[in-house]
C-alpha cells in the first residue's frame, strides 16, 4: 500500500474581548434579550456608517506580534458581499487585500518534538447576527446582538501533518490569545472556531492534493476525530482511483461523519472591494511600540522564570502556566505569602480536585489570591492543622471567604500548647495506660493512637505535630 501524508491548514476565528462592537458602540455582552444590543449601524439601517473600534486593532496587532507576524502599517478593510438574513447589510466588512498581520509563525511541541507552523495572515472582521427558527410557525427570526462583534481570523500555512500537531497549534494559539486577554477562546461557546483544510498526498510528493474544508468543529476532540475521519475518507477515494472534490463539509460529531455543504462550483463570488466608508488604518511606530510595550509575559517565558524563581516541579509549572488565570492566581498568592511551593500545592491539589468535582474550568475560579495566601500563612504558623485547612479551603473555593475570620468564628484554631492541650494530653495518657506501656516498651507506633485520642478529645482542633512533641515530652 502507498504511504500517504496529511496536509492540514487551519482558519481560526477568534471573538475579541472588546466591551463594544467593532463598528459601533453597542455592547458585546453575551446573552441579553434579542435585538437589545443593537443600533442603526449593526442592524444595517440605511444611511448608517461604520466607525472602527481602536481596541480591535490593538488586539489584532497584539496577537500578530505574539505570533511573529509582520504588521501591515497601512491596512484597509474590504467588503465581502453575500446575501444572508443574519448579515444585515448583505455584506461583511472584512479584510482581503491588506490584512493587518502577515507572515508569522509559532512553535509547537508534540511528542515528536518541536516544529514551526506558519501563519499566512490575520485579519479583522465583524461577526454576523443569529437566526432563530420559530418552532411554531414557518418563520425565522433574526437576533442582531452578535452582529458587529469583532473577530480576527488567523489563517495558518498548510504546515500541519497530524491531528496532534493541529491540537498543539490550537492550544498554543489559545494560550497566547488568553495571555493577551484578547479573547477567552472557548471552542464550546464559539469564541474560538476552527475550520480545518485538509488534503492527502503520497509521501514525498511535492504538489498538494485537492483539499476540503471542514466546519462545525466544537471541541479539540471533535477536531481530532474529524481529521482522522477526513483523512480516511480521502485515502479511500484516492485508493479507489477517484478524485477528491474541493468542497466545504460539515462535521457531525455525534455520528462521527461529515457531509458536503457546497462544492467549489457553488462557491459564491464575494465581489470584494475596498470599504469606502472607512479610512485606511495607519499604525504609527509610536502606536506599535505602545502595543509592544504592553505585551504580557507569555507562557514559554513564564516557564523559564518559574523554574528559576520559584523552584517548583516542572510538572506543576507546566500545569499552572497552561492557564493564564491559574498562573495569575499563583503569582499573586506567592507575592503575598512568599511560599510558591505551598501555593502551587493548593492549586495542583485541592483546586484541581474541586474543579473536577464541580465540572468547572480554571477560568471559573473566583477566589482571591489574598485569601489563599492567608490560608497558607495560617497553616504555616500552625494556627490550623491540615484537615481544618482543607475544610477552610473548600469555603474559600466556593465563597471566597476570609480564612482568618472563618477560623475565628467557627472556633477552628489549633488548641495551643499552654494549658488546655497539655492538660488534655495528660488525661489521654492517664486514660490509656496500655498504650503508654507499649510505647515505653519500644512500640513507637503506639504514639499514633495517643495522638488520635488527643485529636478526638480536641474535636480535631489541635496541631498533630504539636501533640506529638508534647506527648514525647510527657512520656
Amino acid at each position: 500500500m502507498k504511504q500517504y501524508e496529511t496536509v492540514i491548514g487551519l482558519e481560526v476565528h477568534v471573538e475579541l474581548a472588546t466591551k463594544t462592537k467593532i463598528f459601533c458602540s453597542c455592547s458585546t455582552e453575551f446573552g441579553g434579550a434579542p435585538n437589545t444590543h443593537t443600533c442603526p449601524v449593526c442592524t444595517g439601517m440605511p444611511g448608517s456608517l461604520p466607525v472602527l473600534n481602536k481596541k480591535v486593532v490593538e488586539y489584532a496587532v497584539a496577537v500578530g506580534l505574539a505570533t511573529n507576524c509582520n504588521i501591515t502599517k497601512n491596512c484597509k478593510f474590504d467588503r465581502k458581499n453575500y446575501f444572508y438574513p443574519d448579515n444585515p447589510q448583505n455584506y461583511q466588512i472584512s479584510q482581503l487585500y491588506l490584512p493587518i498581520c502577515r507572515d508569522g509563525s509559532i512553535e509547537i511541541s508534540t511528542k515528536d518534538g518541536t516544529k514551526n507552523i506558519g501563519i499566512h495572515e490575520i485579519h479583522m472582521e465583524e461577526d454576523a447576527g443569529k437566526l432563530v427558527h420559530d418552532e411554531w410557525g414557518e418563520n425565522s427570526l433574526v437576533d442582531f446582538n452578535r452582529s458587529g462583534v469583532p473577530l480576527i481570523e488567523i489563517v495558518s500555512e498548510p504546515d500541519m501533518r497530524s491531528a496532534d500537531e493541529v491540537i498543539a497549534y490550537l492550544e498554543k494559539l489559545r494560550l497566547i490569545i488568553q495571555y493577551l486577554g484578547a479573547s477567552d477562546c472557548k471552542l464550546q461557546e464559539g469564541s474560538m472556531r476552527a475550520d480545518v483544510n485538509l488534503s492527502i498526498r503520497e509521501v514525498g510528493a511535492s504538489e498538494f492534493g485537492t483539499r476540503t474544508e471542514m466546519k462545525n468543529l466544537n471541541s479539540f476532540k471533535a477536531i481530532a476525530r474529524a481529521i482522522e475521519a477526513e483523512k480516511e475518507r480521502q485515502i479511500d477515494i484516492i485508493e479507489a482511483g477517484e478524485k477528491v472534490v474541493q468542497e466545504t463539509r460539515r462535521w457531525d460529531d455525534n455520528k462521527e461523519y461529515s457531509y458536503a455543504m457546497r462544492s467549489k462550483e457553488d462557491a459564491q463570488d464575494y465581489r470584494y472591494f475596498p470599504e469606502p466608508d472607512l479610512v485606511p488604518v495607519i499604525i504609527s511606530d509610536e502606536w506599535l511600540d505602545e502595543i509592544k510595550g504592553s505585551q504580557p509575559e507569555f507562557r514559554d517565558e513564564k516557564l523559564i522564570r518559574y523554574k528559576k524563581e520559584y523552584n517548583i516541579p516542572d510538572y506543576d509549572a507546566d500545569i499552572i502556566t497552561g492557564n493564564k488565570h491559574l498562573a495569575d492566581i499563583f503569582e499573586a498568592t506567592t507575592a503575598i505569602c512568599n511560599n510558591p511551593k505551598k501555593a502551587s500545592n493548593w492549586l495542583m491539589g485541592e483546586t484541581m480536585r474541586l474543579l473536577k468535582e464541580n465540572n468547572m474550568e480554571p477560568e471559573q475560579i473566583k477566589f482571591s489570591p489574598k485569601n489563599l495566601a492567608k490560608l497558607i500563612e495560617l497553616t504555616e504558623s500552625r494556627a490550623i492543622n491540615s484537615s481544618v485547612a482543607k475544610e477552610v479551603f473548600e469555603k474559600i473555593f466556593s465563597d471566597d471567604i476570609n480564612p482568618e475570620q472563618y477560623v475565628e468564628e467557627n472556633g477552628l484554631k489549633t488548641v495551643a500548647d499552654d494549658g488546655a492541650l497539655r492538660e488534655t494530653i495528660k488525661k489521654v495518657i492517664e486514660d490509656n495506660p496500655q498504650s503508654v506501656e507499649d510505647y515505653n516498651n519500644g512500640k513507637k507506633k503506639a504514639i499514633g493512637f495517643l495522638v488520635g485520642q488527643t485529636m478526638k478529645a480536641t474535636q480535631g482542633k489541635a496541631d498533630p505535630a504539636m501533640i506529638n512533641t508534647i506527648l514525647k515530652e510527657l512520656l
Partner: protein
Amino acid sequence: MSLMSLTAVQLGEKIKNREISVIEAANAALDAIDAKESSINGFVTVDRENALKRAEKVQKDIDEGNILSPIAGVPVAIKDNMCTKDMLTTCSSKILGNFKPSYTAEAVINLEKAGAVIIGKTNMDEFAMGSTTETSAYGATKNPWNTEHVPGGSSGGSCAVIAAEECSYALGSDTGGSIRQPSSFCGVTGIKPTYGTVSRYGLIAYGSSLDQIGPIAKDVTDCATVLEIISSHDKKDSTSIKRDDIDFTSALVDDVKGMKIGIPKGYFGEGLDPEVKEAVLNAAKELEKKGAILEEFDLDLVDYAIPAYYVIACAEASSNLARFDGVKYGYRTQDYNGLHNMYKKTRSEGFGAEVKRRIMLGSFVLSSGYYDAYYLKALRTKALIKKAFDEAFAKYDVILGPAAPTTAPKLGESLSDPLKMYLGDIYTISVNLAGLPGISVPCGLDCKGLPIGLQLIGDCFKEKNIIRAAYSFEKCEKKL
C-alpha cells in the same frame, strides 16, 4: 408677493425682526405647495402637521433667544435620501415606500439645531441614480420653467421646489453632479462641497466615496449660509474631515481682482450646446471685467471621467443597495417561496430599471476575474484625475465651465438613451472623482427660455474661492 420669493436669509431676517412669524413662513410654503405641486411634483412627502408643530417650537426658541442662526424659522425641503426620524424616507423607490428611519441624518440635525423647519422630502431619481428625476417611483418632477422639461437630477425635486418658490431652500446630494446639474436646469444655485465637509451619516448611500450633501437655494449667499450650518466634523462618519475654515459666509465678497481662473478647453468642444457655451463664456468675461485673470488650459483625462465614475459609483451602489432585501424594513413581495425567491421577487419588484441596470453593472465590474480590469483601473483613473486637477490648481484659483452640456431636455427624451444621459454628466463627474467643491450659478437663458448654469470648481477645501467668484458674478449678472 409670496414669502417664498424671498431668499432664505431675507426671510430669516424678517423672522428675526418679528416682521413675520415662523408659522406664517411655514404656511407660506405649504400654501405654495398646495398651489403648485400638482404641476411640479417636487415633493414625495409634505409633512404639514409636523412642520406647523415644529414652527411653533422654533418660534418659541427664537422668542426665548435660544436660536440665533440667520435661517432660524425658515422652511427647508430635504432630499428624500436623507434620513428623517419617523418621517418617510423613500429614496423615491418603491422598495423604501414605507420606510420611516429611527434616526435623523447628521446634516439635517445640524439644520434643526439652527432652527430649520422641515416642510417635506423632495423627489429624486430613484436612489439618486439618474439625471432627470424621471426614475422616481413617485412620478417625474417637472421643470418649473417649462413643465414639459425635466428639472435635471438626481436632486431634481429639491431644485424644482426652490425654482417654483414652494420652499425657501433645500438640501440635495451630489454623487456625480446631482446638485449642480439640476441647479443649472432649474436656474437655482447649488454647492457640492469638498468630500468630507458635510457628514454622510444618515445619507442613504449611492456611491459612498463620491456622495456629498450640499445646499440648493436662490442665491450664493443662501448657499454659503446653509453650507456653513450643515458642515461639521462628525465622529459617526469616518470620512468626515475636521476643518476650521467653514466660515463660508466670510467669502461673500464682490471682488475677484487678481483671481486666476482656468478654462479647460476640453469643456467647450464637441457636444456642448452653442447657447450654453456662449452664456458660460460671457459669464467668464464678466468676471474678467471685474479683474479676474482668465486663461485657457488643457485639463487631462476628461474623457476618462465618465467610464471611471460609472464603474466606481455602480460598484459601490451594487453593495450599498444589497441591504434592501425585504428582511428588515421596506417593501417585501407578497407571495414567495423560500428565502431566495423572496429576495429575488422583492428586489425585482422593488427597484426600478435604472437602479437594476446600475446594480448589475456594479456587480459585474466587481466579479472575480473582472475586478482588476474595471474597478482597479477605475480607481487608478480616479487618482490620475485628481492629479490633473492638482496640477491645474497649482496655477488657478478656480476652474470655470458649464455645469451641463445642454439646458433641460424634454421629459421622456433621456431615459430611452441611457448612454447619452450618462454623457450629460461630463462636466460634473470629475469633480466628484477628485473630491473637489463645485458650485452651479445661473448665467442666462437659452432661446427656449430655459436656464443655463455656470460651474465654478475649486481645489479641495477652497470653497471660499468659488463662493467669492460666484458671488461676484451674481452681483454683475443681469440676465436672470
